[in-house]
């Protein structure tokens, strides 16, 4: 009898988890994209890009998970882009992309490229574009209440919590050949997550960070897609 009760409890938990996984796809996320191109861009054979995030000692850093998501989104598929790993690029260009020394703006690029050995090393690595990612995901609002209790006879929760998260990211694409900004792409997403609880809390999680990542990756792919008439 105890075994049957345990099996039924496990089934109930699994069902609720499965429902919550299905329902989370229905949570609201909003993507806004702004794409400004100052000149055409394209990747020739053998050319690659590298995704960099600011890691200086004063500003908030973009999450590693976002960086990894963007990398995976850009490389996957038949039309994937050749993306070098950030740590390999930074090591190859040591010490010029260390947090304190990395060029803060495109105006610093010519000075960097004028240093002995830098242009040769970049040619050796094969990187044509730097994609600087700025931004993060933050909780902007939250509310609700939930109470949970546990006793020898059993336990559970009752109530509801909600929270709204906003993701705002910008990709600034620098062309190392021309030492200029090739384009800027922004992605903003908001999502509200809910956690109602009737005995067991059911998480309905919005993932604006993932939505912003996918939106940004789509735009970056289009940015580097071969233009009509080009080889």
């Amino acid at each position, binding site marked *: 009898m105890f075994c049957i009760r345990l099996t039924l409890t496990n089934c109930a938990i699994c069902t609720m988890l499965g429902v919550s996984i299905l329902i989370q796809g229905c949570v609201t996320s909003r993507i806004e994209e702004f794409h400004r191109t100052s000149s055409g861009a394209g990747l020739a054979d053998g050319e690659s890009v590298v995704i960099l995030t600011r*890691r200086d*000692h004063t500003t908030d850093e973009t999450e*590693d998970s976002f960086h990894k998501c963007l990398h995976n989104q850009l490389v996957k598929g038949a039309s994937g882009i050749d993306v070098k790993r950030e740590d390999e690029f930074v090591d190859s260009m*040591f*010490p*010029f992309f*260390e*947090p304190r*020394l990395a060029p803060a703006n495109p105006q610093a690029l010519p000075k960097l490229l004028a*240093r002995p050995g830098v242009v040769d090393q970049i040619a050796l690595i094969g990187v044509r574009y730097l994609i600087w990612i700025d931004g993060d995901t933050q909780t902007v609002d939250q509310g609700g209440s939930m109470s949970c209790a546990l006793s020898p006879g059993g336990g559970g929760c009752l109530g509801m919590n909600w929270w709204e998260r906003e993701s705002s990211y910008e990709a600034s694409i620098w062309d190392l050949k021309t030492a200029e900004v090739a384009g800027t792409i922004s992605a903003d997403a908001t999502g509200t997550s809910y956690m109602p609880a009737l005995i067991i809390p059911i998480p309905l999680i919005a993932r604006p960070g993932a939505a912003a990542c996918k939106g940004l990756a789509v735009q970056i792919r289009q940015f580097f897609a071969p233009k009509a008439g080009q080889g």
Partner: protein
Amino acid sequence: MGFENIGISRITKRLALLCVISMLASCTNNVAIRGTFPKPLVAKQPIVLGLYYSNEFKNFKYIRDSYQGTDWYIELGYPSVQLFDQIFGSMFESVEQLKSRPDEMSPALHVNAIAAPKINDFAMLAPDDSALDFFSVSFKYQIDFLTPEGNLIHTWSFVAYGKARWHFFDEDESVREATMMALRDAAATLALDYHKQVPFIDWLDRGSHTQLTETVSDNY
């Protein structure tokens, strides 16, 4: 039934004791820093440099006893030796570790000059201290540049910083990352600011090292 009660009670007591010991042991974090440094993209200097590491430098440790919170024990001598060996090894034609600090009685004539680094200070800011979600560390290094006879030419002091996100379940890794970032910052300073050490470079340019080299050659 009586025997079963005694067995469960003993097991429970032993488990409780084990938990208490584990909790006490986890209050002190021993962190070993290990890593390598990339070769800097700078021109090699045509100098044979001697490196002298004092015992104080080689055995430098950071020990922090907190009244409330986590205690820290971080070994910093070994990674600092690695730092200077690897970076100066890339910047100069040749480097050689000296077993003792040279002086007038026992000069190191087989090198052009000597660098003797020191760690003047190491500081760490933990989330407990700052209510922020990252660890930050800083080194205060000092390098004494010496003649082969051990006379001071120039002293170079600088500070290196590192920061890393707080990993809730692995604070050791956070400290390790922050310290490696600070060591890389120190490596970057060594590579890029060496040319600003004018008194030392002037001493080398005045031909003193060339004369010493000739002296060494004559001895052979």
